[in-house]
């Protein structure tokens, strides 16, 4: 009898707590849709090397973001597909699932299962340690856009920091502009015949770990990745007869990478450092780092505008043999934030290669809001390179200006 009472009480308790949860859930978000449609035009200042290429290209984009939350508030699902249609480059016309992720939250751990994106790092010019997602080069040649990565991510929240453990099945190949596309360098990259060190090819399962913690004004993280390199080695492609096709073919080696990130805040300064060690049977073991600072002047020239200065230096142990252009480069950028109703921002920067003194690039990015929900962005990139051994040489005729409009809903 006593026992029955206890059970009844437990059932009533459970039911009432469900009812309470139900009431709360009704007030929280069940389904939410947001996203944007975009249109973009790009004009190149110089004629292309290859007659297949053109001096302008237009494209339209769409990225809806659908979000469901379970009534308990501890489970959610996000679906974010992405589409770009390009007038010129069939490789740039592409569809990707940026996110299709189930998130489950517990008190001291979280689980993410599906397709998603993870960002590691602190620097602005080069993202050295950021390795979980593949770069979507056709979207942004500077490496700022990423492809969705299938993953199981477990996050453990501990007193001594946060640990993320990843299982990454399903490798994503890097995108490259096609024959008709610009910003591809002098050689076409044959993405249809990518080669792999692993016999599992795109089926190889990769693993990663990341630990991060904050000690007052210091943020530290350490990470490890083991699996298929996101960065391919580009090799001259051979035809079946053993001759050169004149194109390059990506080869994806197996690598083991350790990364470290530090960020320190002192007054209005933010100091940043990223370093990696990458090793593998098919690549030279090497170290690389990028570091610098960001300093913000609040309310410059007696106005409400902020002026941020970013200075970074990137270094790669392989020197001029490095597979990346930022092997010994210094970058300086200024960001003006007007703090106006339209959220106007202007970022202008300059990168100088210290090994090839004629190799430099200059960029300007400006954005503002028009009306309630339309964002207009103007980008300009100017490249200079005189030395054909420089990785930036292939871009020396690719100066462009780009105007993009995005309607958000």
């Amino acid at each position, binding site marked *: 009898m006593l026992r029955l009472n206890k059970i009844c009480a437990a059932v009533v308790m459970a039911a009432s707590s469900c009812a309470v949860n139900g009431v709360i859930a009704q007030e929280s978000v069940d389904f939410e849709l947001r996203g944007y449609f975009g249109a973009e035009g790009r004009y190149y200042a110089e004629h292309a090397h290859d007659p297949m290429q053109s001096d302008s290209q237009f494209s339209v984009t769409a990225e809806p973001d659908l979000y469901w*939350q379970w009534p308990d508030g501890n489970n959610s699902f996000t679906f974010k597909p992405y589409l770009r249609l390009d007038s010129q480059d069939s490789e740039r016309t592409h569809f990707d699932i940026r996110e299709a992720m189930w998130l489950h939250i517990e008190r001291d751990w979280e689980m993410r299962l599906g397709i998603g994106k993870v960002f590691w790092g602190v620097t602005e010019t080069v993202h050295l340690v950021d390795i979980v997602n593949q770069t979507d080069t056709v979207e942004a040649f500077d490496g700022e856009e990423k492809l969705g990565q299938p993953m199981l991510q477990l996050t453990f929240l501990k007193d001594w920091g946060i640990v993320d453990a990843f299982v990454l099945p399903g490798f994503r190949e890097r995108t490259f502009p096609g024959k008709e596309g610009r910003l591809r360098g002098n050689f076409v990259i044959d993405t249809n015949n990518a080669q792999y060190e692993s016999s599992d090819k795109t089926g190889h399962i990769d693993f990663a770990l990341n630990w991060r913690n904050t000690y007052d004004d210091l943020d530290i993280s350490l990470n490890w990745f083991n699996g298929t390199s996101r960065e391919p080695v580009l090799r001259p492609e051979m035809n079946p007869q053993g001759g050169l096709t004149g194109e390059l073919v990506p080869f994806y080696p197996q690598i083991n990478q350790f990364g470290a990130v530090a960020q320190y805040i002192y007054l*209005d300064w933010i100091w940043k450092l990223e370093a990696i060690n990458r090793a593998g049977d098919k690549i030279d073991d090497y170290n690389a780092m990028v570091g610098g600072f960001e300093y913000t002047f609040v309310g410059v020239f007696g106005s409400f505008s902020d002026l941020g200065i970013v200075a970074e230096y990137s270094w790669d142990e392989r020197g001029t043999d490095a597979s990346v252009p930022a092997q010994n480069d210094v970058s300086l950028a200024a960001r003006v934030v007007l*703090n106006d*109703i339209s959220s106007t921002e202007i970022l202008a920067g300059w990168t100088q290669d210290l090994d090839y003194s004629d190799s430099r690039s200059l960029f300007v990015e400006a954005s503002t809001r028009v009306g309630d929900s339309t964002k207009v962005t103007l980008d300009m990139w100017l490249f200079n390179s005189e030395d054909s051994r420089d990785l930036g040489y292939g871009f020396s005729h690719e100066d462009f200006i780009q105007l993009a409009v995005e309607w958000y809903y």
Partner: protein
Amino acid sequence: MLNRNNLKVWLKSVSLVGALWVANSALAESPEEKGLRIATERKAADKGWGDSIATTKMILRNAHGEESVREMRLKALEVNGDGDKGLTIFDRPRDVAGTAFLNHSHINEPDDQWLYLPALKRVKRIASRNKSGPFMGSEFSYEDLASFEVAKYTYKYLRDEVVNGEKCWVLESIPTDRYSGYTKQIVWIDQSHYRPQKVEFYDRKRSLLKTLTMSDYKLYLDKYWRAHTLSMVNHQTGKSTDLLTTETQFRVGLEERDFEQNALRRAR
């Protein structure tokens, strides 16, 4: 020699002197002491609210009366002995929807601030020594939106005055933070419930910059008053911002972990 009578007389005179001294010191409470006492009582009157979630709307107006709307949700956690913690999630304008701002405010050192950019899945830490910049292009600065802490100012009681139909103490508050955007604030605090009714902000050139008026006060949990309309007018530019709270819930069960950096990554 002290006999019993003498002792009585002596005790009487001592206690009389003591009483006079106490009375005198109360009368002679300096304007600074009175200002500090009112500020301390104001903070004490609002102690214990715990945590809250609010849905708010900001209406930005330029000098020509053109309007622009911001919508956001604010989660807040009371921290005893230090500044409060706040998480702001933006819903409108739509191009910044999902952007989240986390603030751990402190009394005697710069706040810890982080911004989450959903498109990049990136949490960026912000150097926050200078909080005088505008919040989302509005007439409110980050400083104006921070939690009230007694030690953030030195005080001076000026006078009594009726504002918004309430009898108020008028205090001069001088920020102790040398990176504050203001040289002083004049604050009207009502005598019935210690609620701020009006604040005048003086810029670094010591001229009147902005006036903030609080209205639509509602009582929560029988103790905590919250203004549902905050109107900030900039006298130098003619621009203004109304910060309207459409809904507030207290003690919804938020904890420290809901205000950690990690919580930013799943803010929605």
